[in-house]
């Protein structure tokens, strides 16, 4: 079993030039003939942050200097996560011609989606850093190393959900529409533009406490915004959530690796 997994990962690594070039194609295609280029991937979270700041920093009585980085960090994670989820639904269809040509591990097509989104996420993260440093100084530098496990976790999470939803969408194409509706609902149940404490104060804290994405967000926010380590509870919850997703993804792959082509 372990041997099999290592072999599989090895095979993915051997094909790295292939899927990395596909990521490059995707990026270039997306910004073909656009003035801002990759800047567009920043415009969305930045513009949304502006809107949320104007409306909600007043409504919630928040200081705009701490609220803006808070919202931007939430939106950066959110656009990564929804991006992976919605784009991965198409990953096996856009890779169909390759799948029919030459055998390659099926995990590389969701990986293509995930890496593309991860690049956008990292760019957004750089903007976030600049924003934090300019609003509240360099107090977080000492804790930035804690981002390494967070980013790894996000990557595994993205890849796993991409595999799961990519495969489901091949079998049931209704999935991509359900994902869009579901993500909209989930957006309001995740502490992106409000603080988890606000819900807890009103006695409905369970919504965010049960939400594994809220735990993932804490792993991003604590080190960057507060210069602190995320709580043990959040870390444990986020890690187990990702572990469960990765397990489901592996089992899914093991089941469909040899059969998916018949469904395409």
């Amino acid at each position, binding site marked *: 079993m372990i041997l099999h997994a290592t072999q599989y990962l090895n095979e993915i690594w051997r*094909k790295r*030039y*292939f899927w990395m070039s596909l990521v490059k*194609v995707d990026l*270039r295609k997306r910004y073909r003939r656009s003035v801002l280029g990759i800047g567009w991937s920043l415009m969305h979270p930045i513009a949304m942050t502006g809107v949320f700041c104007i409306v909600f920093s007043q409504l919630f009585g928040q200081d705009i200097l701490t609220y803006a980085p808070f919202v931007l960090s939430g939106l950066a994670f959110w656009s990564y996560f929804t991006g992976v989820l919605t784009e991965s639904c198409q990953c096996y269809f856009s890779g169909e011609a390759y*799948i*029919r040509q030459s055998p390659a591990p099926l995990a590389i097509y969701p990986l293509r989606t995930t890496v593309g989104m991860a690049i956008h996420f990292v760019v957004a993260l750089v903007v976030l850093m600049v924003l934090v440093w300019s609003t509240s100084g360099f107090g977080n530098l000492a804790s930035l190393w804690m981002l390494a496990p967070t980013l790894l976790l996000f990557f595994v999470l993205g890849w796993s959900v991409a595999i799961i939803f990519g495969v489901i969408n091949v079998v049931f194409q209704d999935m991509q529409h359900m994902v869009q509706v579901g993500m909209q609902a989930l957006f309001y149940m995740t502490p992106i533009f409000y603080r988890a404490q606000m819900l807890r104060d009103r006695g409905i804290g369970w919504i965010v406490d049960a939400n594994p994405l809220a735990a993932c967000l804490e792993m991003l926010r604590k080190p960057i915004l507060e210069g602190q380590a995320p709580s043990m509870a959040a870390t444990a919850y986020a890690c187990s959530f990702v572990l469960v997703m990765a397990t489901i993804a592996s089992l899914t792959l093991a089941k469909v690796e040899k059969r998916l082509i018949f469904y395409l």
Partner: protein
Amino acid sequence: MVKISLKDVGVQFEVRRHGRVTLKEYVLKGMFRRKRNPVITVNALHDVSFEAQEGDRLGIIGHNGAGKSTLLKLIAGVYPPTHGTRDVIGRTSSLFDVTLGFELDASGWENIKYRAYLLGETPQTITPKMQEIAEFSELGEYLDMPLRYYSTGMIVRLGFSIATAIHPEILIVDEVLGAGDKSFLSKARARMDEMFQTASLVVLASHDLNAMEELCNRVIWMDHGSIRQMGPPKEVIAAYSEQQTSTSSKLAA
């Protein structure tokens, strides 16, 4: 060592008469939907067994839909066997539909790289071959343009040039030379002959019976997804053409 060994191999899959099943249908399955969208089992291949070693030039003949392409895709590893065992040792390269699997927004040069990477090349191994591929394709300046602006013939030339620049141990060919103009066609023939010389094992499916008799040392006649006859080219091809003429005369009568 290079070898292909198939034991009682079958490829069987299910399709729905009216395309894919939706989630709604899946949930309602067993109520009333089943009758409207029945499952059809496609028995694309069954009970196929043979072995091929180094030096073999294997030809596959048969009517349309007899399972030739499925068999080739199975050997190439694109289709997994749903029954039996498939054992292929050696680096394989396949020439199926060479026009498939290009990124239309990328240039010819870039597509050469992507395709080569998919076939297992690395930047180090492909760089020396790039020039040769470009020259063989005769596309010149077009290689700097996105594939979106290529004609079908140009894409065929590019695909063929890439696929044949990589020297595999096992070469799998499914009637590729459809498009392309006359001068390229004769060049492609020469390239194929050269590949037939250098690859240690070749599997070829074609309707060109004369070429088969010339190129192959063994021929498999596929019929309704299984092997009808296998043996020396002369014998099998004679039996096949005899059956073909008898069915066509029956149709005429």
